[in-house]
C-alpha cells in the first residue's frame, strides 16, 4: 500500500507541474462543454420550443384561413407575418423573400379553401344525416376541387425543420377541418330538433380525448427531458475524461525514453504496484474531472441562459458510474502508453481513437439517430456505455440497478486493457 501511495504522490507532483496536461484535462473539456451546450441549445430544443417567423398569404379570407391564422398566432412556435413594409404579402413576394433567405417558411391559403372544406363537410354531414334519417340537408356540390394549403421553405432548410413545421401546420388544418365538420353535424342535429349539442365545437366535443404527454420518471417532474445541457455536459465530460490518454501515455513513453521506467523495473516487486498506483491516481483525477464538469453544468451554464444540469432522482449513482468511466479511460491511456514506442505514435492514436469512439458511441449524435449498423458498432465503445449509464440516471431517473450492466462493462473493459498493457510492458522490458 505504501508503494501505491508513494506512486499516487509522485503522479500528483508530476501532473501539477504539467500545465499543458492539466489544461487538457480540465480547461479544454470545460470550454468544450460551455461552447457545445450553447451551440447545440437551439437544435436540442427540437424546433418545438423555438419561435419562427412564418410568412402567411391569405387568399381565402374565409373561416378556414381565420382558424389557421388564429391557431398559428396562439401557438408559441410561430410569429405570423402577413405584411412586409406595410404591404400585404402576395404569393410571389412570399417566394421572393424565401429565396432571399430572409425567412425560412411561408404558407399560402388558397382562394376558395374555406368553401372547399365547407363543401366537403356538408357532403359528409348530408351523408350521415341520410343514413341516420335526420331529414335535413346542407347545400353541397358533388364535385370537389383542389385547394391545398401551400407550404414553402427556404431551400437551405433542413429536412427535420421541414418535417417539424409541416406537422405543426397539419395539426392546425386538421383541427380547422374537423371543427367545421362538427359544426355542420351540430347544425343538422339542430335542424332535426336536437338542441342539446348545438353550437358545440371540436374542442368541446372531444374534450378528454387525444394526446397528453406524461412524465415517465418517478419524481413526476419534467426536468429530465433531453436538452443541450443534459446531452452535452455528460457527453463532453466523458470525452474529456478519455483525453486522459494523452498525459498518461505521454508520461509512460517519456519515462521509458528517459530510463526512469527501467529504474522502477529494477526495484523489487514495484512494477505492478506502481502501475496500480498510476491507474488509481488517474482514476481519481478523471472522477474529479467528471464532477468539475457536472459543477459547470449545475452552476455555470445557468448563468449563460441555459438550463441547469438535472442530476436525476438517484444522483449518488453517478459516483460509481463516474469511477467506472474514469477507470476505463485511465486503462485506455495506460494501454496506449504500453502499446506505442514513441509519443509521435501514441498521441495521434490517442486523440483520433477517442474522436472515433465518441462518434461511434453517440456523443456527437445520439445513437438512436445512427444507422442500424452503427448502433450495433456503438456497443463496443466504452464512451457509449459511459454516456448511456449517465443518461439512465439524469434522464430516466435510473437507480444503481439500471446501470450495473454498464458499470460491469466499463470495469471489464478497463481490466482487460490493463492486463494487456502489463503483459505488453513486461514483454517489452524483457526484450522478448
Amino acid at each position, binding site marked *: 500500500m505504501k508503494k501505491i*501511495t508513494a506512486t499516487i504522490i509522485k503522479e500528483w507532483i508530476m501532473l501539477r507541474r504539467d500545465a499543458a496536461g492539466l489544461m487538457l484535462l480540465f480547461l479544454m473539456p470545460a470550454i468544450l462543454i460551455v461552447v457545445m451546450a450553447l451551440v447545440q441549445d437551439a437544435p436540442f430544443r427540437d424546433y418545438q420550443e423555438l419561435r419562427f417567423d412564418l410568412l402567411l398569404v391569405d387568399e381565402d379570407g374565409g373561416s378556414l384561413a381565420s382558424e389557421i391564422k388564429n391557431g398559428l398566432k396562439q401557438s408559441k412556435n410561430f410569429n405570423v407575418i402577413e405584411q412586409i413594409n406595410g404591404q400585404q404579402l402576395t404569393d410571389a413576394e412570399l417566394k421572393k423573400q424565401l429565396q432571399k433567405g430572409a425567412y425560412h417558411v411561408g404558407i399560402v391559403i388558397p382562394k376558395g379553401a374555406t368553401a372547399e372544406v365547407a363543401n366537403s363537410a356538408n357532403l359528409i354531414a348530408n351523408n350521415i344525416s341520410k343514413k341516420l334519417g335526420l331529414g335535413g340537408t346542407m347545400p353541397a356540390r358533388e364535385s370537389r376541387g383542389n385547394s391545398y394549403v401551400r407550404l414553402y421553405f427556404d431551400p437551405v432548410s433542413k429536412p427535420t425543420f421541414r418535417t417539424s413545421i409541416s406537422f405543426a401546420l397539419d395539426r392546425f388544418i386538421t383541427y380547422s377541418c374537423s371543427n367545421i365538420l362538427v359544426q355542420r353535424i351540430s347544425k343538422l342535429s339542430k335542424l332535426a330538433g336536437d338542441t342539446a349539442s348545438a353550437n358545440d365545437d371540436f374542442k368541446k366535443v372531444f374534450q378528454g380525448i387525444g394526446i397528453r404527454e406524461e412524465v415517465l420518471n418517478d419524481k413526476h417532474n419534467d426536468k429530465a427531458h433531453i436538452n443541450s445541457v443534459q446531452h452535452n455536459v455528460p457527453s463532453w465530460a466523458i470525452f474529456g475524461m478519455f483525453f486522459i490518454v494523452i498525459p498518461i501515455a505521454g508520461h509512460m513513453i517519456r519515462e521509458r525514453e528517459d530510463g526512469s521506467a527501467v529504474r522502477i523495473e529494477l526495484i523489487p516487486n514495484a512494477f505492478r504496484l506502481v502501475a496500480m498506483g498510476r491507474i488509481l491516481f488517474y482514476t481519481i483525477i478523471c472522477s474529479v474531472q467528471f464532477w468539475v464538469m457536472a459543477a459547470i453544468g449545475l452552476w455555470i451554464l445557468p448563468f449563460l441562459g441555459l438550463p441547469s444540469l438535472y442530476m436525476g432522482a438517484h444522483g449518488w449513482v453517478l459516483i460509481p458510474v463516474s469511477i467506472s468511466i474514469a477507470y476505463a479511460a485511465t486503462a485506455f491511456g495506460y494501454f496506449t502508453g504500453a502499446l506505442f514506442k514513441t509519443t509521435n505514435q501514441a498521441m495521434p492514436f490517442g486523440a483520433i481513437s477517442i474522436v472515433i469512439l465518441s462518434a461511434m458511441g453517440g456523443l456527437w449524435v445520439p445513437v438512436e439517430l445512427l444507422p442500424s449498423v452503427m448502433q450495433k458498432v456503438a456497443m463496443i465503445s466504452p464512451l457509449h456505455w459511459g454516456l448511456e449509464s449517465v443518461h439512465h440516471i439524469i434522464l430516466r431517473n435510473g437507480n444503481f440497478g439500471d446501470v450495473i450492466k454498464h458499470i460491469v462493462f466499463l470495469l471489464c473493459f478497463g481490466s482487460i486493457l490493463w492486463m494487456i498493457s502489463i503483459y505488453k510492458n513486461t514483454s517489452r522490458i*524483457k*526484450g522478448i
Partner: protein
Amino acid sequence: MSLAIEISNLHKMYSGAWSPALDSFSFQVRKTQIMGLLGPNGAGKTTCINIICGLVKRDKGKVSIFGKDPANNIQQIRKEIGVVPQQIALFGNMTAWENFRYIGRLYGLNEATIKERAHNLLSRLGLLQHADKRIGRYSGGMKRRANIIASLLHEPALIILDEPTAGVDVQSRALIHDFLIEYHKKGKTILYTSHHLDEAEELCDEVVIIDEGKFIISGTPKDLIEQTAQQTNCKKLEDVFLHYTGHSVRD
C-alpha cells in the same frame, strides 16, 4: 572464493539480429572486488548487465548472483543489487529529493532512513544544496551523480554501473571516481563498464574485455599491460584494449 557474480557460457541472440549479442561469454566477480567490464560499442556489455539484473532473458548459459539464479530469484537479487543505468533514470520534473523519497519508498524504506541516506549521499556527491532543484534543470554531471545516489539508497551489496561517467566533466568524473573507491572500502562489490580506460585502469582490481559478445581476456590491469607488452609496444590499458579489439570503428 566467494563469488558475487558467476557467468558461464552465456548466450543471447536478439530477434532479427545478424549475430549474437553474447556468445558463450563467461566471467566471474569476487565479493568486494571492483571488476571492469570493457568493450567497444555493441560488444555486449549492456546486454550482459541487463541479464544480470533480470531485464533481459538469456537464451543459454549460467548466471548466478550471490549464488542465486536471476531466472528464479530476480526479486530477491534486486534487493541486493544497485544498478546505475546508462540513461539518467530519474523523473526530470521532480526534484532530486522528491525522486529519492519516491524511489526509497518503492524500496520499502521509511522516511527517516531515506532522509538520512539521501542526505549523506547528496552531501558526499556535492548535491546537497541542489536537492530541491528539479532533475531536469541539473547539468549533465549533476544528473549522473543523482543517478548514482538513486541506485544506492537501499545500500546494495553489489553495484553495477553502466558508463557512469559518460559525458561528464573532469571534476564530476573525479568526484564519482573517489566516491566509488570510498564506497568499495565499505565492503561493496562493483561491476563497472566504461569507455574511459584510464579510469578503469586506476579504479578496477580486475578487468574483463568483451568484443562481439565473446570473452577476449581478463586480469588485473597491471598483468594485462605486462602480458601484452611482450607482444606489442604497450604502456597502458588502452593499448591492451586496442590490441585485442582492433582499431576499426564500431557502430
